[in-house]
């Protein structure tokens, strides 16, 4: 199964607002369902959700082609959905069932080789691996995306990979989801300079965009993808977002002030609400908006039921798969 998140309208480079809205609502409900599964105990480990960062993933869905690769982070679900990773198998894996990785990987360690998708729980570790995908994909028109948080941009592995990607002219997009924090540490207390300019001295162009607006994200992604697909090398795109939940489910999150949270999470800036407001402003029928919301809820409800119907992993196989 794959999630159809076709969000483009016929005009290339412009998103279909209603389809985009439905995709974003689906993503939010998906993450909320995963959050609820922490409460029920179906997930017993750490859980990092992408709620608040849906606009980036929706735009990514529009920019990606099936043959592209993505290496995501410890906050990976929405990138996986955007790239067409089987939502039921992923959900099953998150719920510690016989899912994508037979219950062995779990939420920070999702692998979908059929989509060239993977993620890692080690901050910054994904960038070099994305470079490897890019090396293998070079010349095919496909692109490898390295997703990083703002915090990850200070990891040696990422900084080394910027150089390597430029040196080898790799078809890569460094997508930085800048939510202003690495756990409790503010970006300005951890990162010198401007993130989008990090690749500058290697000759890598960078752009910063409003990560709460899917069209703005796509506008920034398109030239980066076009460049990479055309063999012109890597680019950096920084999307400014906010994470609506604590760093992980259960995080007391006292390091961010209520005022700051309110300023980002109000209806005027919540990406899902913003997209809805756009539809209303454009005169979209209320019934169409409602239908999109209903469809999104039904879709996720169906996935959840299908995932929960999958068996628990087979204990007899716990020692398999270490080496061939």
């Amino acid at each position, binding site marked *: 199964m794959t999630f159809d998140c076709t969000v483009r309208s016929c005009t290339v480079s412009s998103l279909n607002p209603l389809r985009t809205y439905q995709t974003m609502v689906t993503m939010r409900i998906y993450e909320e369902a995963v959050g609820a599964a922490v409460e029920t105990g179906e997930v017993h*480990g750490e859980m990092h959700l992408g709620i608040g960062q849906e606009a980036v993933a929706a735009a990514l869905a529009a920019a990606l082609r099936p043959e592209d690769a993505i290496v995501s982070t410890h906050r990976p679900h929405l990138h996986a959905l955007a790239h067409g990773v089987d939502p039921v198998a992923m959900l099953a894996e998150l719920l510690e069932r016989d899912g994508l990785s037979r*219950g062995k990987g*779990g939420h*920070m360690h999702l692998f979908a080789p059929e989509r060239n998708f993977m993620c890692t*729980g*080690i901050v910054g570790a994904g960038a070099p691996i994305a470079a490897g995908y890019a090396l293998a994909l070079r010349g095919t028109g496909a692109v490898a995306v390295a997703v990083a948080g703002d915090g990850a941009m200070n990891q040696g592995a990422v900084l080394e990979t910027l150089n390597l990607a430029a040196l080898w002219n790799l078809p890569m997009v460094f997508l930085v989801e800048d939510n202003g924090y690495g756990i409790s540490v503010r970006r300005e207390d*951890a990162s010198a300079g401007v993130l989008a300019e990090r690749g500058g001295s290697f000759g890598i162009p960078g752009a910063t965009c409003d990560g709460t607006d899917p069209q703005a994200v796509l506008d920034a992604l398109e030239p980066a993808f076009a460049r990479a697909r055309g063999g012109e090398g890597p680019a950096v795109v920084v999307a400014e977002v906010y994470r609506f939940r604590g760093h992980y489910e259960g995080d007391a999150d006292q390091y961010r002030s209520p005022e700051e949270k309110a300023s980002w999470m109000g209806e005027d800036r919540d990406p899902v609400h913003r997209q809805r407001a756009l539809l209303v402003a454009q005169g979209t029928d209320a019934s169409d908006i409602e239908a999109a919301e209903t469809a999104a809820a039904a879709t996720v409800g169906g996935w959840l039921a299908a995932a929960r119907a999958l068996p628990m*992993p087979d*204990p007899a196989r*716990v020692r398999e798969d270490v080496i061939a």
Partner: protein
Amino acid sequence: MSTSTKVAPFGSQIVAETLLEAMTEDERIIVLGEDVARLGGVFGATRKLHAQFGSERVLDTPISETAFIGAAIGAAQAGLRPVVELMFVDFLGVCFDQIVNQMAKHRYMSGGRVTVPLVLRTAVGCIGAAAQHSQVLSASFAHIPGLKVAFPASPGDLRGLLLTALADPDPVVFLEHKWLLKTRADSQPWHEDEPLAVEPVEFGRLRRLRDGGDITIVAAGYMVQLAYLAAQELAGEGIEAGVIDLRTLVPLDREGLVHEAASAPTLLVVDDDYADYGMSGEIIASIAEALGPEAPRMRRHAVDVPIPANKALEELVVPSPTSIAEAARAALGCG
């Protein structure tokens, strides 16, 4: 420190209070790592330090383990006494060069002219976060000449061993088991008189926590607590199991181990680090070398695959009181 409070402190609080006390006494101590300042550590083990000592001495770092652990080495060589936190031991891979080739070797390579008096604190063990956030990796440090490795098993030792580490002239890797950080000081299954008032605990001296004539279980860190619980379970079946806490992996109390092994008919080593090329093999080899044919029958119970995400699978892989008791029965031939 007061022991009269009604609710016993969490292990993480004990670490923080010990650091606070030490920093008050020794101005050379600085604390650095991810989220250690404003947040007080993801496990709370550096809480209140930033409020007390400010950003000069308590530094939040970028997510740049190579840079800030390397910086701790330089600062130590220049006269400070850094306490540097590697949030989860699993992130060791990022900064292993600074640990293996720099921190551990500078004393030797300088012919003893350079010392690196720092404490590398790191959280270890499985609390349910799968393959990249559940490891112990104690043997990976212990394997490298030039590092001391302390592995407290109880709240009292969190303090006692940390005090010793802070005074040590060499780099000490201080392994804080997550369950120990997250549980209260009176929760270990044996009685410790005044866990919070303890003096520094000497490195390289194991302790016997329980006598037992049938089998001796050797462990370190939180596994000691689980071994103790297993011993209590076994006692109900008429099996008397002794429990040994190694306290430090380096220096390893080989003499003490050999002494214990000489009077034990059977010995079981429990480890939540990986089995192969690990602590269990080291202990068994040390005893076998010393005792030869007089050595007891020896077995090990340790982790043999990456930690899976699913809880039931995890329980098959990570030692528990039940699995330790089972391993003990098997070692005794009554499984």
